[in-house]
């Protein structure tokens, strides 16, 4: 169903009811991931065991790190009488056996449908054990509302409301809410801030906890993560930057209204212009200039984009994943000269639709922005009108193999490759990495011919296989293109 149209770009929403190969999962995993960014914190998933074990496994497959999440192991009994007893026991056990710095209790479809009053149960627990003084926060993550990013966003909202201490002692720091990114992205943001000599509090920081080192003795909790003291202190920061609208947007307005921390919700800093915008805002707020080292990275990126343009200009790309990564990628791919043809997200967001149409108008795009859409729908589009590249997470690999289109792996989850959780796509260096991935994906195809920009049919000896290009027997042509 078409929602909005400009002369060229459209926003559509999937009509089919059954979801086939979704590009979204459920909310609790977002709260679990965010909790991993707080040093020594643990999550209790209040539900049946699958709802904890599955997401743990998913995070482990992406990061190749241990991922611990407790479950209240609800059973049939709890479904009838409520899950209160189980949650009380779980809180005690997690506290006594692990000694976390904080506990996040997140809900599931099951506990939400049962209707357990989580705050009351936590209150009762704290009354029973007054000596246990660690913060215990509860995050609503019924999965029938929103997607995995909703869980992350809800956690950040709770963090802003209940873990931050009101204060008026300027700490000369900024808060950065990176959103649902990779450990590698957070490290790149940290490196950039370090080069700019800007002190930053990350809300939250799972760059080390979910990408830890090998140490001669395994620490009880992984090294790293934002400390609770830093979170308490984050009300004293001079500004907050939320780098994803859908993950951190709500928290940003709480910081703004409640703590008077001026908050900037920016497009994710992917590509040249988005990164420019982020860094110039940081400069504006902190007075710290962009240093030479970063300027040189920027110049190198621009240089690489010049070197790359004859390989990629006008090639069509399909993007899929979470809305904010897509927003960043749309501008970036367009500035590289690619044509974002289909942009697919599972999120249903009017704000996203509006932002995308504005972007399309500004960049003169003929994109179909597909909200609340699954990967099977994308597959059908790509079959009907091929693209040269797919950019998204591992679940797109089935389209890539079937249609013989390179998949540039970006987002969550990447479970069929090694080390992608360490790759940064943010900042100038992240953009450089993406430029290289895209050009190399093109160059490493057997036959380097665009699916879409060259019509091979009239050339002697060239036959397009399966109607989508990328066939064999184009060696000459491919060499020509390679030399370009």
């Amino acid at each position, binding site marked *: 169903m078409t929602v909005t149209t400009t002369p060229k770009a459209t926003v559509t929403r999937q009509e089919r009811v*059954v*979801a086939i190969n979704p590009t979204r999962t459920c909310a609790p*995993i977002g709260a679990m991931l965010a909790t991993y960014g707080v040093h020594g914190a643990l999550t209790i998933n209040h539900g*049946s065991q699958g*709802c904890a074990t599955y997401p743990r496994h998913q995070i482990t497959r992406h990061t190749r790190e241990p991922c611990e*999440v407790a479950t209240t*192991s609800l059973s049939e009994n709890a479904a009838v009488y409520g899950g209160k007893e189980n949650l009380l026991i779980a809180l005690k056990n997690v506290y006594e056996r692990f000694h976390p710095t904080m506990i996040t209790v997140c809900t599931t479809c099951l506990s939400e*449908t049962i209707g357990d009053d989580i705050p009351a149960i936590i209150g009762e627990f704290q009354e029973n054990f007054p000596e246990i003084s660690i913060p215990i926060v509860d995050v609503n993550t019924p999965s029938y509302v929103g997607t995995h990013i909703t869980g992350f966003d809800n956690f950040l909202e709770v963090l802003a409301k209940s873990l931050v201490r009101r204060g008026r002692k300027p700490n000369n720091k900024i808060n950065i809410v990176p959103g649902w990114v990779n450990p590698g992205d957070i490290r790149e943001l940290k490196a950039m801030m370090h080069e700019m000599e800007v002190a930053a509090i990350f809300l939250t920081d799972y760059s080390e906890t979910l990408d830890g080192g090998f140490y001669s003795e395994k620490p009880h909790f992984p090294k790293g993560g934002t400390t609770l003291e830093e979170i308490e202190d984050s009300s004293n920061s001079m500004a907050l930057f939320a780098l994803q609208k859908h993950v951190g947007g709500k928290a940003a307005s709480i910081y703004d209204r409640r703590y008077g921390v001026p908050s900037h919700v920016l497009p994710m800093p992917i590509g040249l212009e988005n990164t420019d915008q982020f860094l110039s805002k940081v400069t504006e707020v902190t007075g710290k200039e962009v240093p030479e080292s970063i300027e040189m990275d920027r110049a190198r990126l621009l240089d690489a984009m010049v070197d790359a343009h004859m390989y990629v200009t006008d090639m069509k790309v399909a993007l899929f994943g979470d809305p904010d990564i897509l927003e960043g990628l749309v501008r970036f791919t367009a500035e590289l000269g690619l044509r974002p043809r289909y942009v697919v997200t599972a999120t249903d967001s009017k704000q996203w639709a509006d932002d995308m149409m504005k972007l399309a108008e500004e960049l003169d795009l003929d994109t179909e922005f597909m909200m609340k859409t699954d990967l099977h729908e994308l597959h059908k589009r790509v079959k009907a009108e091929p693209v040269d590249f797919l950019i998204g997470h591992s679940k797109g690999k089935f389209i890539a193999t079937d249609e013989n289109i390179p998949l540039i792996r970006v987002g969550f989850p990447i479970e069929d490759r090694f080390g992608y959780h360490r790759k940064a796509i943010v900042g100038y260096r992240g953009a450089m990495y993406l430029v290289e991935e895209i050009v190399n994906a093109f160059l490493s195809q057997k036959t380097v011919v665009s699916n879409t920009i060259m019509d091979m049919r009239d050339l002697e000896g060239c036959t397009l296989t399966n109607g989508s290009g990328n066939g064999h027997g184009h060696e000459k042509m491919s060499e020509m293109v390679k030399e370009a």
Partner: protein
Amino acid sequence: MLLKCNKTIPERAKHFVVKGSCTPTPGGGCPVASNVQTTPGDMTERGCTYAGCRGVVGGPVKDVIQLTHGPIGCSFYSWGYRPHLADSDFHIKYSFTTDLEESNIVFGGEQKLLQSIIEAAEEFPEAKGVFVYNTCAPALIGDDGKDIAKIAQEKIGKPVVFFRCEGFAGVSQSLGHHVGNETIFKELVGSVEPEGDFSRSINIVGDYNIKHDIRTFEPLFEALGVRIITRFTGNVSVDEIKIMHKAALNVIHCARSATYIADMMKDKYGTPYIHVTLWGIKHMSDALRATAQFFGLEDRAEQVIEAQVAKIMPQINHYRSRLAGKKVFIYQGGPRAWHWPQLLRELGMDVIAAATTFGHEEDYDKIYENVGDGTLIFDNPNALEIEEVLTTYQPDLFISGNKERYIAYKMGTPFVNGHTYDTGPYAGFSGMVNFARDIDRAINAPVWKLVQKKARPVPGWNGNRNETSMAEAF
């Protein structure tokens, strides 16, 4: 026996025994509490009933639409991660879900289920049926999925099988296996009466074709002159399931997850069954012998075994010389913890600790039979227990699943993935070589020397911040 980490949850003690220092049960084993509710918050590795049904038993059926009736997550997480391979990949490539949303939770999801089945069948007319798996939320609001499945079946003209496998129904994956068996038996088995001679045919029951395990042993059964008609469930089509009652014998591999269907077939069709193990040299030989004996084909069995064993022994001896004397901690879902000690012995290795996620009493009795005195046997381990056992028992190898792999790695313990295999397949005679090779690669990898000599402590670490506070608090 109470581990240190369980000081505050003494109820865990009854899940632990040490062979040789317990009072045996009437069954002969040590009494290990099992198949009971997990202690909430203990950081269990267990999954849910749905996972056992959708992930293990139903998921491998290669030509049906695998439709999860529930909110988005259950289907997303069970999509494509288990390598229960087949000669086609429809079942791995596609995951279908009714994707229930708030309004469906309030007003019911039945209509959405019906529409989803119809739409999915229209999108994939080549599919031979629809498997619908129920999850917690629709079960809780009382959707009558079974009724909808019936209506849908009429509409699409293909079997629509509804599994009551909502996650909260059982204490672990195990109930899901049971539901899967029972439902498939009732809804599909015997629904077609094929012509032909089935007097020398068998079903392999309880093998999920992880990384093509079946390819290692199917030719061996064929060499006996025995045909496998149905693989329950691995590389299997719905049509093959429908005729599985024709087999002369059920050969059960995973006793825990699939004896149910063999029992039901025995009751209804009189089909006899045998329990076998299809991993390892002795086990595989015994399996061929037992099958051959049933059909009076003993001579052929000896020929096949002799030829195959001779083929692999040079490699097995090579690995044995590199692995002899190593100590193993094995933690598997269920039966592998008692199937595999024999394999490890064939490589000169010893099991010093064995645990299962969802084993029942019989599984613990079997473990007891298969391990030596002094072996720690325990049930439903959690993260801290695993760490403690790795620390105090110092095994040379930990065999478990992917979630536990990285705990072992962080502690410097070599690891092999026994659930879905590192390389694989591990079954049959040829798979035994893969198994040995993977263990050798794990244990003798140069990286461990590097780690021992060169790893450094956490920078700036003077005892973990939280461990400090823990010491203060207690």
